[in-house]
């Protein structure tokens, strides 16, 4: 039953304060228990221990003891000073005690039974003097170099661990890795409750540090290898799985800075906080598209961060000015920051952390990475994919529009590149060359764009001195027509349009003529009709007059026969006949 289990006392954890580590261990190191941090030389285990102590003392109010067997206190103070920690001040504030244990085989001889009570007394004294909660033993196996009685050492180290546990000290023990074993003595990993393995691998002359939690008694923990790095702020671990898929999305749209492109993207541009991949072969104008976005962003009064892995800031500004995008005012007003670095300058992780740090500092709403493909030279393909996933996640989580520019190699298929990032992006723009009729023309199309009604058209891509312009391309029987072929096609269409216009005019004229003819005919017929009507009216009138006359005549005749009444018709007829 979940309720019952939740009441069980969970393993208490102590936050290390190390960037990202507490996230992957679900809270830090096991409280009051020993943890082994092992790895080969130079992998950062001493620093891990030191940072654990220093952060404990400064951030969590837990004073700590550093018992070092390898480096003197002065050396350590110098080492961590470069990371911005003032260990001497912490020591004077009684927050940290550094005890340098010198074990020198040449100086020590062993005769008979002994134990390491001296070490216990030293530790106990140091712990009591500042009320320490944390202990770091760096590297306890140095004892094996100074003392030869393995049996005593092993049992004494065991006793030390349980003694530290008994005193409730959260302890970090560092151990040198050797061969297949985690530590030289094969001892510490068994008596520690938590084992952290640090690794330092070199691939293609670039080293990447990795961290893995090998064991963690009584706790869930991330089992992956997490790349980490050491920079001026100490250790930073970037857990790939810590960035989940839970982020708010925006329906707000941001202009791409290019009218034609906005039109292709449903008329409004990119979604705020989405990720746009712009890929294309060399010289297709990718940077120009990026520069337009940068300028549009700055014009809105938002900040834009431009990571350039190919050109310096001044180079970009100069080159973009020639295509009508002046970034200088944006830089001057502080809206645009261009960060240039060679991809091979440091490993991928370092790049990612740089990107993280700069984004956190600058708080941009748009981030441009130009080109991401160059980063592949700084690590393996897998690492690059991981980097992209984390970068994209990070950008989305922060609602930042990311424009990732990717250079496609000439021979590789256009859509199979980009280190698998294409599936992660929301919008994928493709710029490509079309070679025909002895010329090379650029076209742009929207390969995909999630959540918007985007154009399926190829547009011809023109870089003019007034910026990028997108022109509708022609689809002909021989494919897409661009450049002069398009111009020729345009001319042909104009001619055809002219011809058809003339034809219409001609037909219109003919119609006018015909109408006139018909109207004339109608007029003639109407005239005839009128004449006939007139004639008919006259005939009717004549007849009426004639009938009137007959009546008059009859009356006159009756009068002459002196008959008053109207004679019957017969009589009239008789009369007539009599007449």
């Amino acid at each position, binding site marked *: 039953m979940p309720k019952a289990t939740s009441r069980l006392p969970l393993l208490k954890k102590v936050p290390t304060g190390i960037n990202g580590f507490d996230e992957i261990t679900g809270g830090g190191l096991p409280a009051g228990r020993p943890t082994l941090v092992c790895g080969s030389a130079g992998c950062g285990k001493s620093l891990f221990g030191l940072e654990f102590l220093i952060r404990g003392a400064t951030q969590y109010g837990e004073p700590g003891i550093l018992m070092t067997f390898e480096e003197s206190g002065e050396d350590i103070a110098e080492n961590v000073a470069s990371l911005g920690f003032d260990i001497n001040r912490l020591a004077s504030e009684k927050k940290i005690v550094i005890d340098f244990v010198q074990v020198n085989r040449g*100086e020590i001889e062993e005769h008979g039974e*002994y134990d390491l009570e001296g*070490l216990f007394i030293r530790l106990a004294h140091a712990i009591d003097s500042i009320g320490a909660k944390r202990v770091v033993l760096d590297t306890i196996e140095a004892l094996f170099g*100074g003392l030869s009685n393995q049996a005593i050492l092993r049992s004494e180290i065991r006793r030390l661990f349980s003694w530290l546990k008994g005193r409730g000290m959260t302890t970090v023990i560092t151990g040198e890795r050797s061969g297949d074993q985690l530590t030289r003595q094969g001892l510490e990993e068994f008596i520690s409750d938590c084992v952290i393995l640090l690794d330092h691998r070199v691939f293609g002359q670039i080293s990447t540090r990795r961290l893995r939690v090998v064991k963690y008694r009584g706790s869930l923990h991330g089992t992956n290898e997490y790349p980490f790095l050491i920079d001026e702020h100490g250790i930073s671990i970037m857990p790939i799985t810590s960035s989940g898929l839970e982020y708010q999305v925006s329906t707000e749209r941001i202009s791409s800075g290019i009218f034609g492109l906005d039109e292709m993207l449903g008329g409004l541009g990119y979604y705020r906080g989405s990720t746009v991949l712009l890929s294309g072969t060399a010289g297709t104008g990718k940077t120009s598209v990026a520069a337009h976005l940068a300028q549009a962003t700055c014009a809105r009064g938002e900040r834009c961060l431009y990571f350039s892995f190919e050109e310096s800031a001044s180079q970009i500004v100069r080159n973009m000015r020639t295509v009508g995008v002046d970034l200088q005012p944006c830089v001057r007003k502080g809206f645009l920051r261009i960060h240039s670095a060679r991809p091979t300058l440091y490993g991928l992780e370092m790049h990612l952390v740089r990107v993280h740090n700069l984004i956190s500092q600058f708080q941009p709403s748009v981030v441009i990475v130009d080109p991401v493909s160059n980063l592949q030279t700084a690590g393996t393909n897998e690492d690059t994919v991981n980097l992209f996933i984390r970068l994209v996640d990070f950008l989305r989580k922060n609602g930042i529009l990311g424009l990732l520019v990717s250079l496609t190699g000439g021979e590789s298929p256009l859509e199979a590149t980009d280190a698998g990032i294409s599936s992660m992006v929301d919008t994928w723009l493709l710029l490509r060359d079309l070679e025909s009729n002895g010329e090379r023309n650029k076209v742009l199309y929207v390969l995909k764009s999630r959540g918007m009604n985007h154009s399926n058209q190829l547009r011809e891509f023109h870089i003019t001195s007034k910026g990028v312009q997108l022109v509708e391309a022609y689809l002909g029987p021989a494919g897409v027509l661009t450049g002069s072929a398009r111009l020729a096609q345009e001319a042909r269409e104009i001619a055809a349009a002219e011809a058809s216009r003339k034809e219409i005019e001609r037909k219109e004229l003919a119609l006018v003529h015909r109408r006139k003819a018909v109207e004339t005919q109608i007029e003639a017929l109407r005239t005839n009709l009128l004449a006939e009507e007139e004639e008919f009216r006259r005939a009717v009138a004549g007849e009426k007059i004639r009938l009137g006359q007959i009546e008059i005549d009859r009356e006159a005749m009756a009068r002459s026969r002196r008959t008053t009444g109207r004679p019957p018709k017969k009589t009239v007829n008789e009369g007539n006949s009599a007449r």
Partner: protein
Amino acid sequence: MRVTVPDNKRKRTTQPGGSDSAAEWKLRLYVAGQTSKSLTAFANLRRICEEHLAGRYEIEVIDLLKHPELAQSDQIIALPTLVRKLPEPIKRIVGDLSNSERVIVGMNLERVQLPN
């Protein structure tokens, strides 16, 4: 191996701070309380010194339970530890000193005696 016992038969066990600069051999034994190991070590040390350095040595026993701060300043890890402060160079021997011959070799006691 011949052992000569010098005329000066002084031997002292003192607490820290009470050292006698006159002694030719200054030895310090670090222990933690009255454990069997520390008692054995002290007994063994006295025996060896009496046999080899009678009158020329001085033993200082330091109980780290009483003076824990000295463990750090004197770089003590294992107990019991015997430190030869004089003659130089400083030598350290850990253990209960049960193997007398090896202690004699370790302390370079023969070197001192052989010229005599």
